[in-house]
């Protein structure tokens, strides 16, 4: 069985992430060294200290301001929470250990931020600097309050040094962040006033902090205790810069900057309640709130026949968590940079979806809250607003989504774009019946014929023709049911793979059977296309068939041919009462090779192969290694990777029902992916998904238009390659 998706997912935290966190440790080592030296210096500097409010009158004003500042922040967040609370309650506290671990690692530990080296280091600098400087300030205040002086002598000097170093680290971080926006902007980037206010403000605070320190040293320390001032290296340099300034003038400047620094700090911190700086608090909260189910799972609409609306067309149809998470977005652009649709120049950017909804939640959401407060109808005065679905978020963006989960995987603050996008699709399809013709055709075919392949010349049994006696009929006695699925049955290229799987299972003497002719679609395409009702009807029908034929039993395992069937059976069918186990053909084949029941020994031609991760096998269900291990065992095969692989794999373009849609935009996703595969220099691309195979085949047609047929990239299912290497001639001929 597959390991629980999320737990394994964590162990395989992105490799770049690991690299950066590893980098981060040596970066802090020199600091430790300096601190050690400071220990040795202790004797010379006994008595070193400083006065908290040196040269400042009326400092009590600060203490007066503090409660106001906290009040302003809390007010901002509480006020905003009224918009979140427009949504439907959706609190789910299952799997607490996993949620808490995520808060620690992903929230406080910023694990995902680190997966991008540059912004990872940048963020680490700013974050550690802020934490350390906050503690330093707090410590100074505490020291002032309690009767015993902690910050004297060597302790004080060590303290000064730490403060100086982290102030500098902060400046480096801010500079990197500013440079990031100017010099190395991401493709999807949206710096607004917030960015400049937050960064500019923080930079200003750090710089004025050093100026204040420098002036204090210049006026009170450098002449009296020069050996103390070396412990504030940055302050010391600043002091030298002021060395020409008369002491009395320097004291005046000091007072001015001190106030600028302090009032600035208090004002800046209020941004916590009103800008994306709120991610300090909200991101860990969202790490907690993120679902613990497999990322590819869509949630059921329970009692669908009794619902007042289907899917989401109004803000208040979202769950509280879905509205809340709009405010968590820091506009980092990572989701969009990883989105296959955006990469191919199609009209979808997950960041813009989240941001546009956030603006909508601000304008319309606040108005709705006001209506509630005034006892008006929720939508009072909102008739002229553009509709959320179709206006704020355009139909074509919703349709372009592959539900591939690359955005969810990339988001450092744990936003789940896919359920939000599919919820809006649900309203398009079920509420408005507004969809591209191709989608309508697919749904109609699913309804009438029980499969999505409109116009296929085949029947469910076509793939068995001339092969029928080799396919054992399911009797209820065997261990495994091989679920062929619609694609494996109705699409000629996929039929070949179905036959390969069957002959491998026979070769390994697996006890399995096939429900001939009676299978029907498990409903996945309907569900991803937003037709939840049709999904439930199809799923109920199939589960009934499984009940009647003895498949729905904890002792039985269903082998799926298609990763989409796999995901639906494994993660979604339990909601519909499924009890059986699920395994993808690559997982089972890997086991069989492992147990020596399949021996890939035949000489297949020497070849280099690149493996394309199917999203619904890989990112959504963490099956990255089984197919690769099979390939590694086949003689004469060298496996090479495309730059985007495993968690970062790029969708072939078929997911989310796009298999049956016309693509809009600059290029096609499958062409982008084929180009990546061709660029590796591999002779063949292997995958484990019948959709990927079709997408690759059609992409090669255009990408390698001018290439001779025998030099074109070959596209194979892992099972086909294994069959060539492991199925004996006798059976292959039969």
């Amino acid at each position, binding site marked *: 069985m597959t390991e629980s998706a999320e737990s394994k997912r964590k162990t395989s935290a992105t490799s770049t992430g690991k690299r950066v966190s590893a980098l981060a440790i040596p970066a802090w080592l020199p600091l430790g060294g300096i601190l050690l030296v400071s220990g040795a210096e202790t004797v010379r500097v006994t008595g070193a200290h400083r006065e908290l409010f040196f040269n400042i009158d009326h400092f009590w004003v600060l203490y007066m301001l503090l409660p106001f500042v906290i009040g302003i922040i809390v007010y901002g967040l509480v006020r905003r929470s009224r918009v979140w609370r427009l949504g439907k309650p959706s609190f789910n506290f299952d799997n607490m250990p996993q949620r808490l671990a995520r808060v620690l690692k992903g929230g406080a530990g910023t694990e995902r931020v680190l997966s991008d080296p540059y912004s990872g280091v940048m963020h680490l600098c700013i974050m550690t600097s802020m934490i350390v400087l906050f503690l330093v300030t707090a410590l100074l205040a505490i020291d002032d309050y309690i009767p015993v002086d902690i910050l004297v002598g060597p302790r004080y000097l060590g303290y000064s040094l730490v403060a100086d170093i982290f102030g500098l680290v902060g400046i480096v971080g801010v500079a990197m962040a500013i440079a990031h926006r100017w010099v190395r902007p991401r493709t999807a980037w949206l710096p607004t006033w917030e960015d400049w206010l937050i960064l500019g403000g923080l930079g200003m605070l750090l710089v004025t902090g050093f100026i204040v320190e420098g002036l204090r040293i210049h006026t009170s320390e450098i002449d009296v205790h020069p050996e103390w001032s070396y412990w504030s290296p940055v302050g010391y340099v600043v002091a030298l810069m002021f060395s020409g300034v008369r002491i009395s003038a320097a004291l005046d400047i000091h007072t001015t900057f001190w106030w600028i620094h302090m009032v600035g700090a208090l004002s800046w911190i209020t941004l916590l309640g009103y800008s994306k700086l709120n991610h300090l608090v909200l991101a860990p909260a969202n790490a907690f709130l993120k679902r613990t189910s497999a990322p590819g799972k869509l949630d059921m609409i329970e009692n669908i026949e009794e619902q007042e609306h289907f899917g989401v067309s109004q803000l208040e149809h979202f769950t509280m968590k879905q509205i809340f998470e709009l405010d968590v977005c820091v506009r980092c652009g990572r989701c969009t940079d990883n989105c296959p649709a955006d990469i191919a120049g199609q009209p979808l950017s997950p960041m813009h979806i989240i941001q546009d909804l956030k603006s909508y939640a601000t304008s319309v959401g606040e108005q709705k809250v006001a209506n509630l407060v005034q006892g008006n109808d929720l939508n009072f005065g909102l008739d002229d607003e553009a509709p959320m679905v179709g206006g704020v978020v355009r139909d074509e963006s919703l349709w372009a989504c592959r539900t591939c989960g690359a955005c969810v995987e990339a988001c450092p603050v744990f936003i789940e774009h896919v359920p939000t996008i599919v919820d809006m699709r649900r309203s398009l399809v079920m509420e408005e*019946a507004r969809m591209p013709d191709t989608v309508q055709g697919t749904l109609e075919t699913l309804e*009438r014929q029980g499969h999505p392949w409109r116009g*296929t*010349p085949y029947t469910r049994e*076509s793939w068995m023709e001339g092969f029928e006696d080799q396919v054992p009929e399911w009797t209820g006695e065997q261990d495994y049911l091989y679920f062929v699925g619609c694609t494996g049955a109705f699409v000629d290229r996929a039929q070949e793979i179905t036959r390969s799987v069957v002959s491998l299972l026979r070769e390994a003497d697996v006890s399995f059977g096939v429900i001939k002719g*009676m299978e029907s679609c498990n409903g996945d395409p309907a569900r991803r296309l937003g037709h939840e009702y049709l999904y439930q009807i199809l799923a109920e029908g199939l589960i009934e068939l499984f009940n009647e034929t003895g498949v729905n039993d904890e002792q039985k395992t269903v082998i799926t041919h298609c990763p989409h069937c796999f995901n639906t059976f494994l993660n979604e069918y339990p909601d519909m009462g499924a009890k059986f186990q699920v395994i993808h053909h690559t997982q089972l084949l890997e086991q069989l090779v492992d147990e020596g029941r399949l021996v890939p020994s035949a000489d297949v031609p020497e070849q280099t192969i690149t493996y394309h991760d199917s999203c619904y096998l890989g990112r959504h269900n963490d099956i990255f290694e089984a197919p690769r291990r099979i390939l590694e065992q086949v003689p004469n095969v060298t496996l090479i990777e495309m730059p985007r692989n495993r968690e970062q794999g790029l969708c072939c373009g078929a997911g989310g029902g796009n298999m049956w849609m016309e693509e809009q935009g600059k290029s096609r996703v499958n062409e982008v992916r084929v180009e990546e595969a061709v660029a590796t220099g591999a002779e063949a691309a292997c995958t484990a998904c019948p959709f990927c195979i079709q997408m690759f085949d059609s992409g090669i047609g255009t990408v390698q238009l001018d290439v001779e047929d025998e030099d074109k990239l070959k596209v194979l299912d892992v099972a086909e390659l294994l069959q060539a290497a492991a199925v004996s001639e006798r059976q292959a001929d039969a």
Partner: protein
Amino acid sequence: MDVIVCVKQIPDPETPAAAFKVDEAAMQVLPAQGISPVISPFDAQAVEAALRIKDASGDGTVNIISLGPDSARDAIKHSLAMGADEGYHLKDDAFEGGDAWTIALALSKAIQHLGVPDVLIFGRQAADWDQGTVGSIVAELLDLPSATVLRAVELSGDSITVSRVVADGFENIELSTPCVLTISNEFGDPRYPQLRQIMQAARKQVTELTAADLGLDASEVGSAGSRIQMHALFQPTSDVEVEIIEGDSPEEKAAGLVNALREAKIL
């Protein structure tokens, strides 16, 4: 404006040929496994045309009549889900085995029973037998003007302007109401029902009418009243032969192809 649409439930025309089977002895088409019957696509377009007329005129009703076995209810329900108001199911063992004539007779009686509306709409033909006659026979029986195979229908006051698809173009006609129209596929796609409407349609009562309800004797309808006799029903077989035309150059191959086409009397 009040409209009545007559619809028929048929085996899904998208059924792949390989799944299509005929019982030659019983002279019957065997339903394909796992493929549900559907409303004839032209009839769905007819319902779409009716709904647009109702919308354009601002009031009125769209009612549906279907003659057939139990499964015909689904065609009616589908039309109701699209937005039609009431459904009437002509259901009687006596109707079985009928031809276009007996069906048109029963339909015309039902229409008179419900009251002749402003417009009566049919699909240009049922996509199973493709005869395309019922609409015209009903128009004759009710003595109404008719226009067939339409690609566009527009209201102009009390009359209706339509555009017919003809062999070499279009023919635009104006009809007075009441009249009979048959809709062609050029009219455009029928709407996809909203889920709420599907659920409402599922709850709606469909009125069943028997031959007796319509004042028809069992001898007038069904196989008893049929004017067409079926003598045989079989699937035609077609053989495909592949001939590869050899040649050293493209020109030679092309010349060979032309010769082969001439021999086959295609050129």
